[in-house]
């Protein structure tokens, strides 16, 4: 088990990352809260020793993604909420980003992780493959397809990745 200081630091450091991943997958604040609690409790109780900050970050991302998946699986997609409701979340971004976020959120679930990890966190395809437990080539094609879909949704080639 980790000390209180460690957990405090981890929450400070990674809360935004976890929040964004929740944002991608979940549709309401209560679920997000659940995930936060699960993820950081797991972090507090785990005895994994991290080699580096990067390792720690990757561990947390993986735990979060898995937790989101488990949650969605348990709900069995019975809870579908329209996109407007998502926008009413407390963390709803300013309107100029709304279009982009909407585009990302409208992607199928398996693309969203990849898009976020690649474009925001800056992970390379092999790294994403390791984190998500996917084949590298699968990640490449997921990235390629999501890029196409985003381009189609947002229009124009100004979004050249």
């Amino acid at each position, binding site marked *: *088990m980790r000390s209180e200081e460690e957990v405090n630091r981890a929450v400070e450091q990674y*809360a935004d990352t976890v*929040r964004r991943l929740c944002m991608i997958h979940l549709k309401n604040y209560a679920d997000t809260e659940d995930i936060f609690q699960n993820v950081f*409790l797991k972090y507090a109780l785990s005895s994994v020793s991290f080699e580096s900050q990067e390792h720690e970050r990757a561990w947390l991302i993986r735990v979060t993604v898995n937790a989101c998946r488990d949650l969605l699986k348990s709900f069995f997609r019975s809870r579908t909420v329209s996109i407007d409701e998502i926008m009413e979340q407390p963390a709803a971004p300013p309107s100029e980003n709304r279009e*982009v976020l909407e585009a*990302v959120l409208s992607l199928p679930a398996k693309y969203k992780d990849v898009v976020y990890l690649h474009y925001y966190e800056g992970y390379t395809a092999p790294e994403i493959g390791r984190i998500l437990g996917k084949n590298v080539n699968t990640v490449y094609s997921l990235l390629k397809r999501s890029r196409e879909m985003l381009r189609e949704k947002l229009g124009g080639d100004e979004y050249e990745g």
Partner: protein
Amino acid sequence: MKDKLKKTFDSIRAEEELKASTLEFVSRKTGGYRKRKTVPYRRLVPALACLLMLFLGFGGYHVYFTPTSIISIDINPSLELGINALDRVVSVEGYNEDGEELAASLNVNHMNYTEAVEEILSNDIIAEYLSQDQILSIAVAGSDEGKTEKILSQVRACTEGEKNTHCYEASHEEIASAHEAGLSCGKYRAYLELKQYDPDITTEEVQGMTMKEIRDRIASLAGTEEAGESTSYRGEDSAQQKHGHGGQEHSGEGERHGHGYRQESE
């Protein structure tokens, strides 16, 4: 696209409130970051409970089905009942053809041994032998002497109504060597006795003889050797027991044995 995505995601931040509630939750769940040692132990508890159940199961099975005492019943059919620590009959074994037949026809498993002995005594085959004035011998053996004595007295009480029965104690070694010879305990003892007078006798022969036949044979052989010997056999328990332990020391055993007879006949 990269910049725009980055900007979008940048605008998403974890609320302070969310962070605080998470920290509070973690702190509560971990009991103020103190409970470290209990976790591995707690995981072991169900596993240990399962193991315990398993051991209890096997142990119970073992205790129940291990005979601690043996009651050997001989007329012509030789029969042995294995009695477990809880006074229940857990095995019935016939030591000759008649005995096997009888064992197959009996249903005394899991009965209390007194009931079982009563049941056997009231069995038609046994009753027939008894009515033909045959001798019924019952030997009780066990590792625990107190227990053996208790069983013996119980069995004696059961057989009180019958004449021509005699009950005695036997030792464990005796039973082991009896089984080796393929005889039940009571018959083995009679066989040893007979062997003193007739060294040519074999276990196979004895197996087919009734107890009365053996007794009569012993009596007649003893009678020829020791004049004035009574032909009727009424073995006294103590004499029997001493004798039972004895090996093949012919003269010494014979003398002691003879003594027993004399006491009886006088």
